[in-house]
């Protein structure tokens, strides 16, 4: 028998009204604007765009505000919004070599074309709380210098010597898969894995990347290059017969270079892991590149001995919208399920007690 229970409507309506009140907080304080969130909490906005897999700063900022700063809730809201929009098409692949670079560092080469450009980084700060931000002191304008030469990609430098593998080719005739269009299947080709990792949870990927460093699927990595900046997004217009630019987006790219001792088929050379993420998110791009490399076990005939190398484990659990949906659904009413289980445990307990009493009687009989 299934019994539908009603009666939550008023409670739900009032709970949402209370949520709106708590979200607004003290009315004596000014309300934060979407523009303020975009400008002053930009990295929160970037994370929401990356993991919602939807690039739109204003909508992501709206989601952050609506979610009271709960990142996964904001990601969920933005991910849900995207399902309401039609798909116009696929862009031309973005060209990170022509990026308008805002930051570029390499841990493998000190002097390289374009130089080490620190950009707006937290690195080398002392991580001390800054009281000047409490009183909102005037911030000085950034320093300026005449820009230098083109910021060359590090992978192109190593490539000239043939000591590093190429950028990554899929088999002849392979068409890039799209997670938003087809159900997941394993084994999953690298292009689809990269799409899943690009929208994967930063914390989960960070932990997996960390695990590879601690010995669970060791990859011995170097950051060949991390670069952050704006790239053009171009869309082919069939009615015109050429691709036009739609504007620019900011992305973070990480080229991780890894040791490889070679195999019967391949000479010793450096292999690579790749990270590409919407917005400014170095931690995520680096984690992604480490996990990408760890997952390429089939290409290098590596044994799967650690969680980060297991693509079904990694890809199936990287999406925080799916994860939160399944974990958090447990708090929703399970009254009937639980009632059924309660009845079952009561019956089992009765049988257990009966068996024990019967057993004791039997023992007595045997003793007599």
């Amino acid at each position, binding site marked *: 028998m299934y019994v539908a229970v009603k009666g939550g409507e008023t409670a739900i309506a009032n709970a949402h009204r209370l949520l709106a009140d708590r979200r607004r907080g003290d009315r004596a304080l000014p309300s934060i604007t979407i523009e303020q969130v975009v400008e002053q909490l930009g990295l929160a906005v970037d994370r929401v765009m*990356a993991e919602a*897999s*939807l*690039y*739109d700063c204003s909508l992501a900022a709206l989601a952050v505000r609506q979610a009271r700063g709960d990142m996964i809730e904001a990601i969920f809201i933005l991910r849900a919004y995207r399902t309401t*929009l*039609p*798909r*116009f*098409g*696929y*862009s031309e*692949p*973005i*060209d990170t*070599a022509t990026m*308008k*670079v805002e*930051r570029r560092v390499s841990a493998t080469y*000190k*002097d390289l074309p374009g*130089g*080490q*450009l*620190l950009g707006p*980084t937290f690195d080398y700060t002392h991580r001390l709380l800054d009281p000047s931000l409490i009183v909102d002191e005037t911030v000085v304008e*950034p*320093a*300026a*210098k*005449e*820009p230098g030469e083109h910021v060359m990609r590090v*992978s192109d430098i190593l490539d000239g010597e043939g000591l590093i593998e*190429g*950028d990554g080719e*899929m088999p002849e005739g392979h068409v*890039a898969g*799209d*997670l938003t269009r087809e159900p997941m299947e394993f084994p999953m080709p*690298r*292009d689809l894995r*990269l*799409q899943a990792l*690009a929208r994967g949870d930063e914390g989960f990927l960070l932990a997996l990347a960390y695990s590879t460093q601690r010995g669970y699927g060791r990859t011995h990595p170097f950051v060949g290059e991390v670069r952050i900046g704006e790239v*053009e*997004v171009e*869309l082919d*217009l069939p009615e*015109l017969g*050429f691709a*036009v*630019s*739609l*504007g*620019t*987006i900011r*992305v973070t790219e990480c080229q991780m270079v890894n040791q490889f001792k070679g195999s019967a088929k391949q000479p010793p050379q450096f292999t690579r892991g*790749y990270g*590409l993420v*919407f917005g400014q998110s170095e931690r995520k791009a680096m984690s992604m590149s480490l996990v990408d490399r760890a997952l390429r076990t089939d290409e290098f005939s590596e044994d799967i001995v650690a969680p980060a190398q297991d693509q079904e484990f990694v890809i199936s659990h990287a999406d925080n919208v799916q994860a939160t949906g399944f974990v958090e659904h447990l708090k929703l009413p399970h009254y009937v399920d639980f009632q059924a289980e309660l009845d079952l445990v009561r019956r089992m307990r009765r049988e257990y007690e009966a068996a024990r009493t019967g057993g004791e009687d039997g023992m007595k009989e045997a003793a007599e």
Partner: protein
Amino acid sequence: MDAIEEREASPEVASQRREGMRLLARATLAELVGAWEAIADKPEVAPVRGPETGLVMVRGRIGGGGDPFNLGEATVSRATVRLSTGEIGHGQLLGTDKERARHAAIFDALFQSYAHRAAVETLHRQIAARIDAEDHRKAEETAATRVDFFTMVRGED
């Protein structure tokens, strides 16, 4: 219409139009509205498609230059308009601002009309100048964070 199609066949004009569309995609609404108001003999504008907002799947390349993969989507607004003088224009840009997309389409259409091309080119130059100045300022700010390594000489001679 045939005459317009023929004009577009010229690769020079097509490339100029393509560059114009790149600039219009970055124009602010104020720039577009200002330029529209400055046009004296405005043709009638009829919508053909949109303005509408949708998604484009942004693709990246494995390793930066390898085979493509799907990175994630971006919001895009687009519009197609027809002028009373016959020209058809397309506007498409990142974001959800349909008014900007519609204005971009109008200026793409105006670019194809001899009567208005000069005015559109002026707008193109105005947008380009602003973007170049912004890009240059950002590049200068980044350049100021470039590390100048120097080596300390140690040891006996």
